Each structure stands twice: as structure tokens, then as C-alpha cells.
């Protein structure tokens, strides 16, 4: 968002004889005109501005308007109500505020669980398949399938399996293993949260597996050999070689997983519909209900802005702590 200003400065301002200061000497041979990199960025910039930045600003603007069924048709002239929407969304003494808070807590717990589980499964699978053995290729392929399926398909299949009377899950858990006396519900009630986590993990862990597999390939074998000569067993090798070497991969992977899980809409919506059980009422669905189902787009936008603010702060802190290096790549 700071970009337009910065870029204008870069293009217009600055004395023409100012060489790219940070460029190292050997790169001076590239006969770059100063505008050249900007030209390369223009398509990306335009696309991001058109589809993300400008609509987002309109969304922020909507959050201080009263955009509902009465004003929707002339939404550009909706009444300005300042921070009323925010006050309504964030007032914890009101049911709406309590629900938003509960939804937020649910989403955070959900996201943390999904990220951790995906990462653990991905790591376990990648390490288990690190050394070649017959059938490794088949397994790698198989593990990637859930990620390649259309989301709707994957989730609807799970829905099918999670039905209380006719689903496979209860057949196995209750009839097969006898774990419960009474058939549990998976699509309503407290367990719906468990279902949501499991389905999301099933869909997304292959991505963690793929990325970690890629990361493992860049670890030189010598490191393991040295560790082995030092007498390190397999567990210590994992702790002393694999995990430290994976740190840069993990940094990106965890952030991507975090953003995906936090913002995901399709999985909870397909699993539960527009009115999710309170235990699985994550923010994306909650906000969808507030805006598209009950037509209060101003309130929905205000909630989204709060979420955005949280994500920006959380990601910034994360990047700071995990050592940002894109600036001086």
C-alpha cells in the first residue's frame, strides 16, 4: 500500500546521475536504465492494484458506511456512520461482539492446530520417504492426491463419511472398534470443530509434505555423514541436521499454511453451510453470514478490517522474529 508513493518517488524524483547505490560493483556491467525494473513491475503492480488494493480500500470505506438492504442499491451514497460498525462488532458486552470474539478464538485455535498438524505430518512423511525404497514414487504420488482434488469434492466426501447414522467414520469408531457407546455427532455440536480440523489437515498437509521434501533434497549428504561419524543416531540427526537445515523452508511454509487456514472459506462453508455450528464458526464463514446472508455489508466489512489488521500485525511480528531477509536478498 505504501508502494504507489514510493514508486513515484523512485521514478520521478532522485537526481538522474544517482547510480543504484546498493548495487555491488560487479553488477554495474548490467546496462540498466533506471526505469527498466519499474517497467517490469508494472503488470504485477496493475494487477494487484486492480484486484486487491483498490477493492480493499473500497471495502475499508464500506466499513464506515451503513451499507445494508436500504442503501445497497445506491451504495456510493450510503450514510457515513464513522466507527459505529466497528463499535458494534467489537463491543464485547453485546451478543454480536461475543460471537465475533468466540469466532476469532475458534479461528486462532483452528489455525494453530492445522498448521502444527500439517507440519508434523509433512515432516514425518518427508523424512520417512527421504531414503529411496521400492514404491517410494507411488507413495509420494498418493500423498499429493488430496491437495490436487477439487476442494468441493474432497469436503463433500468427508461430509458423507461424517454423517452420524450412515457415515463410515461412525461405522469404524462405534461398530468396528467400539470406542463410543453412543454414536457421536461430527457435523453438529462440539465435535464439528474436530471434523473441521481433520478435513482441513487432510487437504493441506500434502503441501507441507511437498515443501519439506523439496527442502530435504537441498541438504547435502555430507552433513549426515559427518553427524554419523560423530556418533549421532537417527533421532539426533533429525534434531541436529535436518531441522536446522529446514529452518528457511519452514519459515515460508508456516506462514503460507497460517494464512491459508486462517482465511479459508471453502472448507468450512462446504462442510457446514452458511450457518456453521457455533463450535466451528470460523471467521470467514461468520463474516460471510454477516454480510452476504444478512445483508449488512458495512458490518461485515468492519469485521474484515479487524481481521486484516490482526493478520498484518501477526505476520509482521512473525517475520520480524523469524529473521526477515527479503530486504537484503
Amino acid at each position, binding site marked *: 500500500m*505504501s*508502494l504507489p508513493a*514510493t*514508486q513515484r518517488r*523512485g521514478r520521478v524524483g532522485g537526481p538522474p546521475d544517482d547510480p*543504484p547505490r546498493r*548495487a555491488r560493483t560487479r553488477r554495474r556491467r548490467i*546496462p*540498466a536504465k*533506471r526505469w527498466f525494473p519499474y517497467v517490469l513491475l508494472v*503488470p*504485477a503492480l496493475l*494487477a*494487484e492494484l486492480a*484486484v*486487491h488494493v*483498490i477493492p*480493499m480500500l*473500497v*471495502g*475499508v470505506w*464500506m466499513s464506515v458506511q451503513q451499507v445494508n438492504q436500504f442503501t445497497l442499491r445506491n451504495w456510493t451514497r450510503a450514510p457515513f456512520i464513522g466507527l459505529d460498525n466497528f463499535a458494534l462488532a467489537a463491543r464485547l458486552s453485546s451478543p454480536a461482539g461475543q460471537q465475533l470474539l468466540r469466532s476469532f478464538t475458534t479461528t486462532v485455535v483452528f489455525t494453530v492446530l492445522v498448521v502444527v498438524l500439517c507440519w508434523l505430518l509433512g515432516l*514425518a*512423511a518427508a523424512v*520417512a520417504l527421504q531414503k529411496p525404497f521400492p514404491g517410494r514414487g507411488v*507413495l509420494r504420488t*498418493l500423498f*499429493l492426491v488430496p*491437495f*490436487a482434488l*477439487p*476442494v*468441493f*469434492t*474432497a469436503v463433500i466426501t468427508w461430509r*458423507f*463419511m461424517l454423517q452420524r447414522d*450412515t457415515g*463410515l467414520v461412525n*461405522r469404524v469408531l462405534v461398530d468396528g472398534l467400539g470406542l463410543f457407546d453412543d454414536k457421536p455427532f461430527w457435523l453438529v455440536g462440539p465435535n464439528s470443530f474436530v471434523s473441521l480440523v481433520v478435513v482441513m489437515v*487432510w487437504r493441506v498437509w500434502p503441501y507441507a509434505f511437498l*515443501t519439506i521434501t*523439496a*527442502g530435504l*533434497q*537441498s541438504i547435502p549428504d555430507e552433513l549426515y555423514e559427518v553427524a554419523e561419524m560423530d556418533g549421532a*543416531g537417527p533421532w539426533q540427526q533429525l534434531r541436529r541436521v535436518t531441522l536446522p537445515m529446514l529452518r*528457511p523452508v519452514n519459515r515460508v*511454509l508456516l506462514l503460507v499454511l497460517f*494464512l491459508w487456514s486462517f482465511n479459508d*472459506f471453502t472448507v468450512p*462453508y462446504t462442510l457446514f453451510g452458511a450457518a456453521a455450528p457455533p463450535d466451528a464458526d470460523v*471467521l470467514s464463514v461468520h463474516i460471510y453470514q454477516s454480510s452476504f446472508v444478512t445483508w449488512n455489508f458495512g458490518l461485515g*466489512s468492519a469485521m*474484515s*478490517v479487524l481481521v486484516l489488521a490482526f493478520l*498484518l500485525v501477526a505476520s509482521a511480528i512473525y517475520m520480524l522474529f523469524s529473521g526477515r531477509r*527479503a*530486504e537484503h*536478498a
Partner: protein
Amino acid sequence: MRDGVGVRVARITVIVVLTVFTVVPLYVMLVSSVKPLRDVQGAFTLLPSAVTVQPFIDMWRTVPLAQYFVNSVWVSLGASVCSVLIAILAAYALSRYRFRGRGGFLTMVLSTQMFPGILFLLPLFLIYVNLDRAAGTSLFGSRFGLIITYLTFALPFSIWLLVGYFDSIPRELDEAALVDGASPLGALVRVVLPAALPGVAAVTIYAFMTAWTEVLFASVLTTTETRTLAVGLRSYATQSNVYWNQVMAASLVVSLPVVAGFLLLQKALVRGLTAGAVKA
């Protein structure tokens, strides 16, 4: 090096557990697709009472699956090709040049990844429709509008990954080309890109998958003619019936090309992610 018993047991356990976890839903999908409707409506059975291919025939009639499929292929291909081209240009600039606003640009691109879709869905829709009044060409309900939308969804990750990948390619390579008289873009196309192919493949697949499975925006930005598969599959659930077996059959059929393509390119994907992810 030889593994101890503990390690082998652990490995086999991991493999077995994850295989079961992965396979069971896939099996349910497969077996349901060959069951008669009556079967899939009752309690789940491991085997069908009768094997039928009828769902695979009926599914084309119940909803215009072929049309959705064509739409999805168009949109996903368009979005992935465009986003990769744009990402290559941007990543090249970011990797090879230092200029003002570079950090700002990276930050902006990455923060767009955090925008909740709900926040800009309605505004985006309004902009697309109003463009129709202003410019006479509608982005709403057109495949092109969807392509533009999806290509930006994939851009942040693609740029991020490609910058890392380009950084891992020695600058001496393109500098040599430049000394030989090539233009910067010539160097990009003839020297850097060939070396970065796995990275490009990884990004293409990522962009394709993003477009292929997106539901929220597609449900608002498309009409019946431009509906994509991800949304269109919902039409098997109608007012008074859910054609479970046809849903599963259709899902299988539409998944095959993607799964196949994904898996064919798997090696490139792993290699592409290696350099990119490690460097980024």
C-alpha cells in the same frame, strides 16, 4: 547407513498411518461413484450392492459438466499462464536490480495475501460491473474477469518463489549474455528462464491449482455460461435431491486430468520448490 529397528518401525508406522488417512476418503469417493443411487443414500457399505457405470453417464446430463469443465480449463490455464509471465518479469526485476520502492513493492505484494476474500469480494464485483458501464466491456460474468482475479491470487506466492529461484542462479550467467550483447530481457529469456524452468513449473502448477479450486469468487463472479467446475459441482445438490453417486463420479473425472498433470510435474515441482523455498 543401516537403520535400527526403532527407526524402521517408526517409518513404517508413519507410512501406514498416512496411507490409510489419505486413501480412505479416496476409496469412499471411488466406490460411491459406481454405486446405484439407492446404495449411496443408505448406510455406507464397503462394497456396492451392484456395480453401475450409470452415474458416469447421467452426470453429464444432470448438470452441464462439460461446459463447466471447459470454463475451468480456460480460466485456470489463462490465469496460470498470465500470472507466471507477470511474475517472471517482476521477479527478474526484484532479483537483478536494486531500486527505490523495491522493499515496498515486496511488502505490498505479500500483504495482499492476507486480505480476507470477503472484504474485497463485493467491491471487486462492483468494480467489474461498473467497468461495463464505463468501458463497454464487462469483466463480470466473463472468463476474462475471472482470469484477472485468479492471476493476482497466485502472484504473491509466485513472485516470492521466483525471486528466491532467480537469486539462486549465478548472476555471472546473465552477465555473460549481456556482455555478448543481449538485452536484459534477452538474457532473461535465453539464460535465466531455461535455468529456472523447475521454478517456473512449480509456480505454474500453484497458479493453476489456485484457479482450479477457488469457490467463493467464482460463485459471485460467474454466470451459468461461465461457471467453473469448483462451483458447478454444487449443482448436483438440488432442491430435493443430492446425487451423491454422480457427484463422486464427476469429481473423479474432473480430478483425473489435474491429478495426472500435477503428478507428472511432481519432480519439477519438488525441484522448483527446493531452490525457491530454501532461498526465499
